């Protein structure tokens, strides 16, 4: 927290406020207003990208609560994301309205997450990483096999969002639904971290032995954070399902899970806004790789490296390289870089 010298908080209320200064509150409202106006200004392609950033950010925030705030690792997040997508599509097929199916899918996914979280409560670090890796493969196998749930190999078609007879089936309109959920989930997470439970999660991360000695129930909070993370993943997956309108098993593979981890690491572990930045980075980077490849089309680089047909591999390589480079050079992620930039301007022309 970078505050000007002499600005001391005199009450807990002031210390735990979400927005420490008036300017930050104004910036938030301006940001929301700008986003609400975005469909008027931006084209369809840009709106699609914003929608993607939205639902990925929700799922990444869930993973950040698990990894960044509780210190538990999960290499199976995409499986829960997929579970949410299938669950929502399944509810809609049963006649539940889409608006209701999205939170319901979140709840069901949270339940599944709790089931997987129970064994995970005893594990940590490396063993947990391996167990969640196994969960990823088991769930993927389950999706491929359970045709009643996922439509099997053929996948499952679902409907677009509609409320009170209004259809939100275009990117320009569906964007508002995603924006609503992003706001709800992010404010929810920011508030969660101010509560007793949120502080308990952070305590478990920082030193689980001390936390246990202070009376924090380790198993309870580890399981709880798995449940919360799955809830976020489920809601994100449901939003994904009603955007793409087609859910199929192959999408939720291990690479997808790693992509979520990459978002969290690139954004910044233990930073709520970082999840959003990480999701934005991971959505925009492949697009940038693609347009770079297209810009080089026909040049000698293109012919030498055969760029056109290997875009997918280039993207995957970029993801891997981004993870490694961020871990080595910017382990605290984009959120940290952003804090530095802000502090620089706040303190200008002095450096401290």
């Amino acid at each position, binding site marked *: 927290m970078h505050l000007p010298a002499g600005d001391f908080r005199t009450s807990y209320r002031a210390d735990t406020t979400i927005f420490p200064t008036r300017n930050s509150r104004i910036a938030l409202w301006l940001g929301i207003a700008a986003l609400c106006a975005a469909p008027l200004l931006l084209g369809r392609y840009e709106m699609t990208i914003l929608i993607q950033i939205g639902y990925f950010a929700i799922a990444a925030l869930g993973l950040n609560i698990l990894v960044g705030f509780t210190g538990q690792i999960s290499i199976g997040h995409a499986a829960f994301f997929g579970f949410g997508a299938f669950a929502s599509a399944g509810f809609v097929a049963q006649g539940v309205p889409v608006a209701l199916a999205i939170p319901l899918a979140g709840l069901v996914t949270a339940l599944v997450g709790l089931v997987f979280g129970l064994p995970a409560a005893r594990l940590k670090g490396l*063993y947990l990483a391996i167990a969640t890796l196994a969960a990823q493969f088991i769930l993927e196998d389950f999706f491929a096999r359970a045709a009643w749930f996922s439509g099997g190999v053929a996948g499952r078609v679902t409907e677009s969002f509609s409320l009170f007879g209004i259809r939100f089936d275009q990117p320009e309109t569906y964007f508002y639904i995603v924006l609503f959920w992003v706001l709800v989930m992010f404010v929810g997470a920011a508030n969660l971290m101010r509560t007793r439970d949120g502080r308990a999660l952070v305590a478990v991360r920082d030193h689980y*032995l001390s936390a246990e000695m202070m009376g924090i129930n380790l198993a309870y909070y580890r399981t709880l954070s798995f449940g919360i993370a799955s809830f976020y993943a489920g809601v994100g997956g449901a939003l994904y399902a009603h955007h793409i309108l087609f859910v199929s098993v192959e999408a939720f593979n291990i690479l997808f899970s790693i992509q979520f981890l*990459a978002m969290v690491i690139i954004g910044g572990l233990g930073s709520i806004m970082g999840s959003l930045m990480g999701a934005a980075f991971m959505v925009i980077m492949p697009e940038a790789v693609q347009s770079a490849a297209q810009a080089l089309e026909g040049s000698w680089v293109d012919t030498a490296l055969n760029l056109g047909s290997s875009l*997918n591999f280039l993207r995957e390589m970029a993801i891997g390289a981004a*993870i490694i480079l961020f871990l080595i050079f910017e382990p605290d992620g984009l959120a940290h870089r952003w804090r530095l930039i802000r502090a620089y301007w706040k303190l200008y022309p002095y450096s401290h």
Partner: protein
Amino acid sequence: MEWALLVQLLVNGLIVGALYGVVAMSFVLIYKASQVVNFAQGEFLLVGAWACWWLITSQQLPFWLAFPVCLAFMTVFGIVLQVVVLRPLIGEPVISVIMATVGLSIFFQALMKWMFGVFAQPFPAIFGADRIELLGLEVKSVYLLSLGLSAVIMLGFWWFFTFSKHGLAMRATAFDQQVAQSLGVSVPRVFAMSWAISAVVSAVAGVVVGVVSGVSSGLSFYGIKVFPAVILGGLDSIVGAMLGGIIVGVLENLAQYVDSQWLNWGNMINIAPFYALILILLIKPYGLFGTKNIERV
């Protein structure tokens, strides 16, 4: 019951399991020496096999020359990875180190697909595809060769860690880094060496699998099968890793048998080890033979 099929599958399991064991051993080697959990172990197999394949088919080298060149390349590869990627991360939390190796894993998987395509490429015939009758079973001679090679590698590991100076230095480092350092062991060199050996041994396994069933990106799945094996055998025991590998190999073939005879679920050969893994972790959170960390404040 089809006894012939069952026995055949068990023999297959033993052979594949021995390869899993070799890969698991090289995984444990890295973990013991430098406390890094290497999620990119499978990519060592992949890179090694593709390098050897490229030397033979595209550079027209004979196998006896291509193989050592490939192993020399893998030595350098392992050392470079350790120095460039893992060394800056010493002292970082476990999650960061795990993520770095995960990043390496997808980077090299994609790079190999980019360079060599997505299709499986057969190795040029090196040993011939003759079959040998053994106790009434038909076994491909390549399989026997792979079993023999696995045994040689295991013996080599045993000799290395029991008698050679470097192996002893490595064990000392694994036991206590500070004490090893004060006794004149160069810890950075031990780290680099463990990665080099691990890469080379994995590459041998990769080439063997490539010779048997062609080189493809499926090779990297061996790196994931390592986890059930090491959880069974304990993360810090080389003998345990070997045993774990064999058990996983036999287990998945047994699951395949049960599946084909009664269940008809399909895909059990790939998934059964992970069910076993979850079960074991439920009962013993540190693995079957792993040492329980006693933490003091």
